[in-house]
C-alpha cells in the first residue's frame, strides 16, 4: 500500500521532449487512470515509475521513498504489459511463480499464492499450459495473475485491454475494477480509451503533449472540463464545438455563432458580462441537444435550425449529424425522433449545460 508522487517530472529522449512537466500525487489505494491520445507521454510516465525509463529531471516517490535511482525489482511494483510479455517457454504456473522464485520465496508459499491468484482469475485449469495454448483473454488473466502473486505496493497497467476484442474488453474492465476493490492496492492504469478511463477510475489524469491537463473524478471531468482538450477528449460522441463571439446587450449575454445565436440564461451569465466582443469556443455535448418533440420540460432551451446530414439509429438513442452554416454537430436524441436525412429541422440546445472556452488559451471560462 503506498501513494505515488510525481514531482516536476521531465523526460526527454534526445532533443524530443516527451514529458514536459508532470506534477501530481496518486493517493494510497486509489485507481488512477492516465488517459490521453497516442504519443502524449502517458506510457512514458508509467515506465518511469516502473524504472524502465530514466527520469530526465524531477523525482518520483513511492510512499515516502524517492525511487529515481532504485532498480525496477526493488520498487515493489508489478506491471501488466500491453503485449502481456508472458515468458513463452514457461507454463502459466511458472510465469506466475517466476518473480517469487527469483526472490527465493519458499515453495509452499509460492504454491499458495499462485493457486490463490489463479482462483481469483479463474485460470486454475490453465496452470500447466504454455502461453501459446491460451486465448488472448486467458493470456491477459495470466499477466494480471503474475502481478497479483507478487503482492506489490503498486500495480501498473499499460493499456492491458487494447489487444482484446470489444466484448472481452468490457468484461475484463469489470474484472479489473473488482480486483481493485478486492486487493485494496494502488492501481495506476494507462489507456488511450476514454471509456475505460471513465468506467474504471476513481480519478482520471488527462495528459496531452507531455502535460497534465486535468486530474479529477470522472464525473467532474465530464461535467466541468478544464479546457478544450479535456472537453473534446472525454465523452463519446465528443462535445460539439462552435467558434463564436460574446455579445453583451444590456443585461443579456448571447453567443453569436454566425449562423445562429443562443442566449445564456441569466443565472449563468455573470462570468461573461464584461466580455463583449470576445472570441470564444462554445461547447455543448450531443445529449444536451434535443428533438423539440421530446425535449425535457423546464430547461432553458434555445432553438437552432439545421439540416440533417446523417442519422445513426442505435436502438436506445439516435444520433443526428446536423449542419448549420459552416458548422457540423451531433445531437443524441430520443429514438422516437422522426428527423430524417435531408430534413430542415429545429433542435433545442439545453442552455443549462453549455461550456465556453477562451479561443486563445483554450481554458474554460466559468
Amino acid at each position, binding site marked *: 500500500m503506498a501513494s505515488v508522487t510525481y514531482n516536476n517530472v521531465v523526460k526527454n529522449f534526445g532533443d524530443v521532449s516527451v514529458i514536459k512537466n508532470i506534477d501530481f500525487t496518486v493517493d494510497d489505494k486509489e485507481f488512477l487512470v492516465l488517459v490521453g491520445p497516442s504519443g502524449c507521454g502517458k506510457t512514458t510516465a508509467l515506465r518511469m515509475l*516502473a*524504472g*524502465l525509463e530514466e527520469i530526465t529531471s524531477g523525482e518520483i516517490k513511492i510512499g515516502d521513498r524517492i525511487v529515481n535511482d532504485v*532498480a*525496477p*525489482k526493488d520498487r515493489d*511494483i*508489478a*506491471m501488466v*504489459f500491453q*503485449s502481456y*510479455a508472458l*515468458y*513463452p*517457454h514457461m507454463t502459466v504456473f511458472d510465469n506466475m511463480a*517466476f*518473480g517469487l522464485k*527469483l*526472490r527465493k520465496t519458499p515453495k509452499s508459499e509460492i504454491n499458495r499464492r499462485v493457486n490463490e491468484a489463479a482462483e481469483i482469475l479463474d485460470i486454475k485449469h490453465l496452470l500447466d499450459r*504454455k502461453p*501459446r495454448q491460451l486465448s488472448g483473454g486467458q493470456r491477459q488473466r495470466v499477466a494480471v495473475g*503474475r502481478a497479483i502473486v*507478487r503482492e506489490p505496493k503498486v500495480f501498473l497497467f499499460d493499456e492491458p485491454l487494447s489487444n482484446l476484442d470489444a466484448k472481452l474488453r468490457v468484461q475484463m474492465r469489470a474484472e479489473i475494477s473488482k480486483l481493485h476493490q478486492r486487493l485494496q492496492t494502488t492501481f495506476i492504469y494507462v489507456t488511450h480509451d476514454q471509456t475505460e478511463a471513465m468506467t474504471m477510475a476513481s480519478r482520471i489524469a488527462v495528459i496531452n503533449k507531455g502535460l497534465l491537463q486535468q486530474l479529477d473524478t470522472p464525473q467532474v471531468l465530464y461535467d466541468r472540463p478544464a479546457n478544450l482538450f479535456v472537453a473534446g477528449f472525454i465523452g463519446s460522441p465528443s462535445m460539439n464545438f462552435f467558434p463564436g463571439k460574446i455579445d453583451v446587450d444590456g443585461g443579456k449575454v448571447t453567443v453569436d455563432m454566425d449562423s445562429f445565436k443562443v442566449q445564456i440564461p441569466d443565472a449563468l451569465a455573470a462570468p461573461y458580462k464584461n466580455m463583449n466582443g470576445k472570441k470564444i469556443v462554445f461547447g455543448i455535448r450531443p445529449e444536451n441537444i434535443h428533438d423539440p418533440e421530446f425535449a425535457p420540460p423546464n430547461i432553458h432551451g434555445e432553438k437552432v435550425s439545421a439540416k440533417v446530414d446523417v442519422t445513426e439509429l442505435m436502438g436506445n438513442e439516435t444520433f443526428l449529424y446536423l449542419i448549420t452554416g459552416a458548422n457540423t454537430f451531433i445531437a443524441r436524441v430520443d429514438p422516437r425522433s422522426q428527423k430524417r436525412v435531408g430534413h430542415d429541422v429545429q433542435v433545442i440546445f439545453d442552455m443549462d449545460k453549455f461550456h465556453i472556452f477562451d479561443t486563445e488559451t483554450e481554458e474554460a471560462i466559468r
Partner: protein
Amino acid sequence: MAAAQSSFSKTKRQNAVLPYLYLLPAFLIMGVITFYPLIYQVIISFTNFETQHLLLGMRSPDLRFIGIKNYIDIFTAALPVENFNFFRVLEFNFWWALSNVILHVPAGVMIATLLNTDGLWLKRIYRAAYVLPVVVPPLVVATVWTNIFDERYGAMNQLLTTLSGTFLGNFDPIYIRWFEDVKPPIPGFLPGAPLTLAYYAMMIANFWLGWPFMSVVATGALQSIPKDLYEAASIDGATGGQQFWNITVPLLRPAMIPAAVYGFTLSFNLFNFVFFMTGGGPARSTELLVTFAYNLVRNLRWYGVAAAFAVIIFAVALVVFLITNRITRATQNYMEA
C-alpha cells in the same frame, strides 16, 4: 454437352500428367549424376575393383565378386594400411564434430549477446567483421592456418615464445611441432582415439572459422526476442545473468539447435580443411571418414574398398541425419500459437 464433357476430362487427364513431365528433366539429371553412381558404387563395393578395371568397368574379365570381404576388411582393420582402425576413425570423427559444436555455439551466442547490448558503438562494423571468415575460401583459410602453426616460422610458436618470455622470463624459442608430434598432450582425453596436437591446432583454426556463423544465427534470433520480456523479468526481479539464463538461452534454443545440427554435419564432413591442413596426419590421428575414403581412391586406388567405405559413410551419415532431423523437428517455436 457430350463434347464439353470429353474436353473437360481430357483437360483433367492432361493436368494429371503435367507435373510428371515437369519433374522429368530433374529426374533424368539426378539419375545420371546421383542415382547411377550411387548404385554403381554399391555394386563395386562387393568386388575387387582396382585401377586395371577402370577401362572396361563391370565387363573386365578378372573383376570378381568377393561378397562382403571389403566390409569385413574395413571393420577388422585387415587392410594393409598403416595406423588404420575404422572404429578409431569413426570415434575421432564424431568427437571432432561434437567438440567443434560444443565450442562454437556457446561462443557464438555469447558474442552475439554482447554485441546486442543497447547503445554499443559501431555494432554494425563488428557484425560485418565477424562474417568475414565465412566468406574466405577454405583453401586460403587452411593455408593461412598451416603457416600460423609452422614449427619454425609460424605465428603461434612465436606468440607462445613471447608469452613465455613476458610471463615466465624464459626467452628460449618454443618449437612445438603442431602437425608432426604424435604424442597426445593430454593422454587418455578421448579413450581409444588419441588427440594429437594437430587436433588442437585444427580446433583452433576451425573455431576461428566456425563461431561467426553461430553468431550470425544467434544475432538474428536475439533480435526476435521481444524487449518487453526483459522488462517484465527486470520487474520480476531478475538480474542480468538471470535474464540471460531464464529468457535469452531458452528463447535462443529453437534457433540454435538447428544451427548446431548444421554445424555438426558440416564439421563431420569437413574434408577440405582436414585435407589441406594435416592431410589426416600425423599417423592418421586426425583422419576423418571422408578424408580416409579419399586416400583409398587417390593414393591406394582400391576402388572396391573405397566404395565399401563410402557405403559405410553413407550409412553413418544417414543415421546422423535421422537423429539430428528428429532433434530439429522436436524443437518447437515458442511463439507459434
